[in-house]
């Protein structure tokens, strides 16, 4: 495991050029979260069309892992239903799980087939103190969706 595996180009790209950055005009739901230990901040705004997340905006500041994770997540969940997002959230958590037992079927031959760009974050698992950085945006998303278990 090397630093180049942690800081993959796609992560640095999302860090430098965060997608869906900013605020929505009339969000249906807003949630914010901070990591009080390190000061990372993320705010997520959602607009729904029935069960589908029609629009998402992400604001905040923090390290490359927290901000790129939120950026990639925003791309991944836009246009998805609540049920689909729940599945992705579970897959992301499994990918971040320390024990590495949960295999979500990431295939080096078919990169991105399961979680898209987010698969680039799998290297974070080898840096346990940074898992909370990668997870912050997802926890805020769960708050914004009004789901339970927002704080894993």
């Amino acid at each position, binding site marked *: 495991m090397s*630093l*180049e595996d*942690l*800081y993959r180009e796609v992560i*640095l790209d999302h860090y*430098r050029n965060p997608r869906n950055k900013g605020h929505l005009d009339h969000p249906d739901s807003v949630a914010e979260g901070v990591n009080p*230990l*390190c*000061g*990372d*901040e993320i705010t997520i705004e959602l607009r729904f069309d029935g069960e589908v997340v029609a629009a998402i905006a992400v604001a905040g*500041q*923090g*390290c*490359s*892992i927290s901000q790129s994770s939120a950026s990639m997540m925003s791309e991944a969940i836009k246009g998805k239903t609540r049920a689909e997002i729940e599945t992705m959230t579970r897959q992301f958590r499994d990918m971040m799980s320390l024990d590495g037992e949960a295999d979500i079927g990431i295939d080096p031959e078919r990169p991105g087939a399961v979680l898209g760009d987010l698969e680039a974050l799998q290297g974070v698992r080898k*840096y346990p*103190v*940074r898992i909370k*950085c990668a997870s912050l945006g997802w926890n805020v998303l769960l708050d914004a969706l009004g789901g339970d278990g927002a704080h894993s």
Partner: protein
Amino acid sequence: MTDLSHLKADFPVLSNGVHFLDSAASSQKPIPVLEAMDHFARTSYANVHRGAYKLSVAATDAYEAARRRVARFIGATDEREVIFTRGATTSLNTVAFGWGQQNLNPGDRIISTEIEHHANLVPWQMVAKRTGAVLDHVPMTDDFRLDLDAYEAKLGPDVKVVAVTGMSNVLGTMPPVRRIADLAHSHGARVVVDAAQLVPHSTIDVNDLGADFLAFSSHKMLGPTGIGVLWGRMDALEETEPFEGGGEMISDVTLFDATWADIPHRFEAGTPPIVEAVGLHAAIDYLDSIGMDQVLRHDRELTEIALDRLGDVPGIHIQGPRELEDRGGVISMSMDGVHAHDLATILDEGGVAVRAGHHCAKPLMRRIGVAATARASFYVYNTEEDIDALVNGLRRAGDLFGVGS
């Protein structure tokens, strides 16, 4: 150059080659400290101040010897002015709640500063809310010093206490405590100094310093966690009520009332950190065997080298004074385009341990205009090689993130 490189072998944690640059958070312990605690725990341990048996007498003697040693180390003329606490934070809370809550009235003013650690800020916020006193802050200048003109302008008869750091844990700035104290005293205010960073790194004489209360921790000066010191001038301690009640701190207790033991014991409720006091004693012996003037000189020399070499790293900004005068061995930095946590992870891959974050000084971070910094801090066991590793790691971070390209 002050060569202390022979000391590194005294610190077992450092034997794996880690470049430990986080002593401002907590320092490592040398073998004499570990052995003193181990020996005491194996041969002389018992509770203090209550047993009639020989073991308890021996433990009490060791505990009180540590108090005398601390008094001598900081130039206190009366060992009763040395109170053992759980750490600098508890020491500062003892002053805020024990002295502040007793002596502050609605409309009185508390002056703190923009550069304080949360430990010398939040307790005063709490006491201000409880007493109706008003909290005010000395601003920082753009060159990371306290604005003493603004401070003087804030002073007046309603100012009852001035709470200031002896050395910033973020900037390394060492404010002129004596001058601040003299000005405060001319208005009748008490002076509380957070010396958690100051005492481990310089020669302290509490009578020269001019403070009324001084707080510091053992674990930042080569000693164990779990013990710290509150030194108070005797007349200031006499104005202070115990902040915690319990065993050891009483003279007599009925079902409805109690009277206090003498100073310092009235401020040491419950079983104190006894083994830790022995460890702190050994840490002070170790530091004095080096000489605190040497310690400060060594820290400053490393700081000078580091500031010089960091200036050549693309994208690096030093958040603290560039000149060495009135400055300790703490260097906070930020890098364009690379967050402090990423810096810390990349440095860690090169075996360099630094702290990244807000350093328990969020108001100061807002004033500086950054959410987090990476902080390197030096102590007796650090060498130029540690700075080489730091600089190499920062260059690597810059390369990975494409800084300057």
